[in-house]
């Protein structure tokens, strides 16, 4: 069976790649585009390590076929930092709140946090927990991740912070 030529728009860059139709977006991001920040944990939709944002919504790239992502807007963890020497406010918050241990879940956690804050800039703790319910972390116990996202919300919109 022939490979299909597709155009992937990742973090604003356009890539033309020939992919086998059965390859997942996670595989193509990692193995063809060398964007290895996106992790593959369970490879079946449960853990959230592979979360990327496609056309403005978080999706599991391990269940998305790469050919289905043709000409869609994709943001991965590599696309968040504004420059090589600066971090995105959500990334800063994860560092400051010490929300990273082994780091394997972190890319997916941050992409889910971005999805949450893009749609709900001032989430309550309960909303943060619900927003992360598709992401598993086997190290931190989640408390510091929840704190990091609360901190990130304040960094992103210091004026709009709601009373807790």
């Amino acid at each position, binding site marked *: 069976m022939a490979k299909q030529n597709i155009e992937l728009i990742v973090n604003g860059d356009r890539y033309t790649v020939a992919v086998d139709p*059965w390859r997942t977006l996670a595989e193509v991001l990692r193995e063809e585009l060398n964007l290895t920040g996106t992790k593959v944990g369970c490879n079946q939709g449960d853990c959230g390590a592979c979360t990327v944002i496609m056309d403005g919504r978080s999706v599991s790239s391990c269940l998305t076929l790469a050919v289905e992502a043709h000409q869609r807007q994709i943001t991965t963890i590599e696309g968040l930092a504004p420059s090589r020497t600066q971090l995105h406010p959500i990334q800063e918050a994860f560092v400051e709140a010490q929300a990273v241990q082994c780091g394997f879940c972190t890319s997916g956690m941050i992409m889910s946090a971005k999805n949450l804050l893009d749609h709900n800039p001032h989430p309550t703790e309960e909303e943060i927990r*619900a927003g992360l319910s*598709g992401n598993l972390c086997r190290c931190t116990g989640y408390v510091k991740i929840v704190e990091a996202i609360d901190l990130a919300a304040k960094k992103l919109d210091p004026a709009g912070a709601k009373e807790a």
Partner: protein
Amino acid sequence: MSLAHFEVHQPTSLAQALDLLSAHRADARVLCGGTDLVPKLKAGVIAIGHLISLKRVPELDHVSFSPDQGLVIGGAARLSDVAEAPGVAENYPGLAHACSVMATTQIRHMGTVAGNIANAAPSGDTAAPLLVHDAVINVVGPGGRRSIPLADFFAGPGASVLDSLEIIETITAPAPQKPCGSQYLRLSARSLVDIAAVGVAALIALDGAGRVNRCRLAMAAVAPTPRRCPEAEALLEGKTPDAGLIAAAAQALSAASCPIDDVRSSAAYRQQMVGVLARRALEHSLKLAQGGAQ
């Protein structure tokens, strides 16, 4: 866990999608969000040569509610789209609840209501709330269109009356006749993310004298298919509702369930919880219908 080999077709019209399905017949399968299908392809449970994706078919990508047309869910509408669409939470609160708590945020952004129904899992979360609203599955195939009441759609675990050359074009439900209340309750070990161990939906509509003129009860994950229970519904219809009648209907639903023991729960616990959830959902639906608490 690499995928077996297949081709992916991405038609941009319903007519093209139907032609592709007919051209590849037994070797083709409709792909929507892929959240049921892709894990099965990875596990090697099914082998298929051609996937016909519906994600670029604009005719299928819509959700709407109006008092005249009721609810119309396109065959490629995502779970998150349905949860957020205007009018859904107000008129079909059980469905909105199912579409906002089942699976994970990521999966709800990908998966569709049509895929959930076509997949025909006994535990499918959108089935019970759609059953209590008398939903209809409208399909299109090489022979034309037909409409199947959801109550007649499921044929067994993972099986339905849908032909492999047919596509679900819309799922529709009439606007609820007011005053009316409804609810879907589900139990699972983690409350989010994991598949339901028990799901119960209820609907109560009242007449001008406060009598029940329509009652619906449906259950999921406790029988080979999601299903309604007319015997339990009949206990309330035509009556002035009270705690005793609600308890009797809840008991009848529990008695009609036939759950199994599995990793998610034991059969005995499930059967008992059907009664508990049914009572709570009926009480809540009645309150809503009487204009009471949320």
